[in-house]
C-alpha cells in the first residue's frame, strides 16, 4: 500500500496508456485506448468510475458515446446511461453482465483494462473471457 491502491494502479496503467487520475471524482480515464477490430474510431477513451467500496467492487465503466460497432449496438452497451451529472458524452459498458468474479486481492485496474479488451472484442458475448478456449 503506497499512495492508495487506486492511485498506484492508475500509475501502473500509465506505463501503457496516458492516464488521467482524479482523486476527488474517484475517476480514472484511459486515454488513447486501442479499441479492438470492428470499433470506430479505433482509438478512444475508457472511463472507470471507482465506487466508494473500491477495490471490493468493480468500477463502473463508460466508453465514449461516439464509439460505434460494425454490427450495430452491442448487447452490453447502454446508450443514454452515463455518469450521474455527466455531460452525455459517455455510455455505460456493462462489464458486470459477464458475471465477473472480481477478487479484490488479485484484480486491479490493469486487469479491468484487459477484461475490457476481451469484452469489447466480443461485444455481444456473455462470456468473452472464454472465447477461443477449448
Amino acid at each position, binding site marked *: 500500500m503506497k499512495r492508495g491502491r487506486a492511485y498506484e494502479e492508475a500509475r501502473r496503467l500509465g506505463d501503457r496508456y*496516458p492516464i*488521467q487520475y482524479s482523486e476527488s471524482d474517484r475517476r480514472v480515464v484511459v486515454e488513447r485506448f486501442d479499441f479492438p477490430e470492428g470499433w470506430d474510431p479505433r482509438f478512444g477513451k475508457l472511463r472507470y468510475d471507482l*465506487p466508494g467500496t473500491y477495490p*471490493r467492487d468493480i468500477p463502473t465503466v463508460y466508453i465514449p458515446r461516439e464509439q460505434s460497432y460494425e454490427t450495430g449496438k452491442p448487447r452490453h452497451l447502454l446508450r443514454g446511461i452515463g455518469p450521474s451529472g455527466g455531460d452525455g458524452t459517455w455510455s455505460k459498458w456493462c462489464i458486470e453482465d459477464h458475471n465477473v468474479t472480481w477478487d479484490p486481492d488479485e484484480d486491479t485496474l490493469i486487469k479491468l483494462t484487459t477484461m475490457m479488451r476481451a469484452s469489447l472484442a466480443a461485444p455481444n458475448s456473455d462470456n468473452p473471457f472464454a472465447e477461443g478456449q477449448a
Partner: protein
Amino acid sequence: MTRRLRLPVAVVRELRAELLREDGQERFAFVDAGTDDGSLLAGRVDPVPDEDLARQSRTACRPSPAVEREHVSDCYDRGLSPVLVHSHPFAEDPRFSGIDVESMGRFREWLTGLFPDRTFGFAVVGETGVEAVVRDGDRLASLPIEVVGEWKLDAPVPGSTDRFASGIGHDASRAAGDASGTAGGRADDVEAGDASRMTDDVGAGGGERTLPADGREGERIDDRFDRNVRAFGADGQRRLQSATVGVVGVGGLGSMVAEQLARLGVGELVLVDPDVVEASNLARLVGAYDHHVGKPKVAAVREHCWRSAPTDLTVETVADRIEARPEVLDDCDLVVGCVDEVRARSFCNEYAVKHLTYYVDAGVRIDTEDGRLESMAAYVQTVAPGATACFDCLGRHDREATRLERQSAEERTRGVERGYVDEDDLEPEPAVIHLNGLCASTAVSAVVDIATGAKRPPEFVRHDSIDHETTALATEPSAACPTCGDDGVLGVGRRSFGDARFTPESADGQSEETPSD
C-alpha cells in the same frame, strides 16, 4: 478529543514480538501512522532488521542514517507520519531515558529542517508498557496511549487511556507525572537530557479531569439513570454521557438503536440517513407517526430521542448518504451501522478501519420461499480495527448486492429487460419490528460494553429467530483482508494525493508522473 497515539492490538502485539526478544537486545521499528485531529493512528509496523542497525546493545539501538532517511521520506510520500519506536527490553513499563531524550532532540532538529511542516513521533516499548511523544512545533509533547480493542490483549498496556474515559487514563499517577513537566515517572532521566524540549499537553491542556474509578466526584448524574448506575456504575454512566455515537441508517433498526442510546444517557448522537419516512416504514420506525410521512427520517428520530431523553442530549442530523458526508463521523467515538445497503456498511467499516474508530455493524435478514418463512436472523459484528475481524475479513461484502445498489432505477429496468437482473431481486426485503428490536438491543449491548468497559463486547453474534438459537464468536483480523490487512488501509486516516496524469515512458525512457491539481 484529546490527541493520542492510537495503537490497534495487532500493532502492540507485533511491536512486542519484534522488539522484545530473549537476547535482551534493544531493537527498532518504524510505525507508519495516519493523523487525525492531532492524534497519530498507528497502522503498519516495519521492523528494522538487526543488520540495518548502526548501533545495537542491551541499552541502545539506532538504525543507520540511510535507513532512517529512506523510511521517513517514503512514509511522508505515502501521506503518513513515522513513529520511531525502540525497545527497553529490561523495563516492564518503560520511560524515555536521558540518552533517548537527547537523541530525540537532535533527530527532531534534523527532521524539522528537512520537513518543516510534517508530524512525527517517538515511542519506547517495554514488556507491557509504551511511552510516546509527538512533535509539537519545536518541542516534543507527551502523547497518551490508547489501545484499540485492548480487551484482546493478554497483557494490557499500563497507563493506557481510552476515548470514553471520564478521566485521562486508568493510571492517574502517570498523568500526574506528566503534568509536572517530565516525560515520565523518572524525572532524573529527562533532566539528564534536554528537558526543555519536552512539553506536556496532558495535565495542562488536555482539558479532561481524572475522576476516581468509583465516580463519586464530579458531575451529578441525573436520577433518571439511577438503575443504569446500579448496573454498570457511575463511571460507566459518565463514560456513556461523554460518548459521541454515530448511527448510520435510522430506519426500523437504527431508530431503535438511537432511542436506546438516548435513554441510556449517551451524550451526543449523530444520525445519518438520506431517506424520508414512508407509510410502509410506520410499522417499524419508532417515534414516527402518520404526520412524519414525507419528512426526513433523521428529523423524526431526533424528535423522538429528545422526547426520550430531554436532558443533556445533543443530536446532530445529516439527511444524506454517509458516502457523501463521511466527515460527520470524525467526532464520533463509535459508529453503529444500521443500513440495509451493503455498500454503506462496507463504507462505514472502511471508515472505521482508516480512522481506528469502533464500528458496530447490525443487520437482519429474512428469507422466504413461496410465501413460507425459511430463515430469520439478526447479526451484530463489533469491529475494533486491528483487534477483531472487520466486515471484509469475514467476507461479508456481497458484490451482487452492491452491483444492484449502484444502479439507477432506469438501469435496473433495462437490466430486467435485457435479462441481467432478476425482477425478484428488486422487491423490498421482508422486515419485522420484533427482529429489529432483538438486533438493536444486541448492538446497543456491544456499544455499552465498549464504552463502559463493564464487560467484554460480543465480537460476532448471530441470532437465529427460527430456532431461537444465539451463536457468539470471537474473531481475529485477517492479514489478507483488503481493508484491514497487510495491504489495506488500517490507520491511514484521511489522506489526499490530489489528481495526477501518468504517461507511458517517453522517448528518453523516463516515465512521467505529473500532479495535475
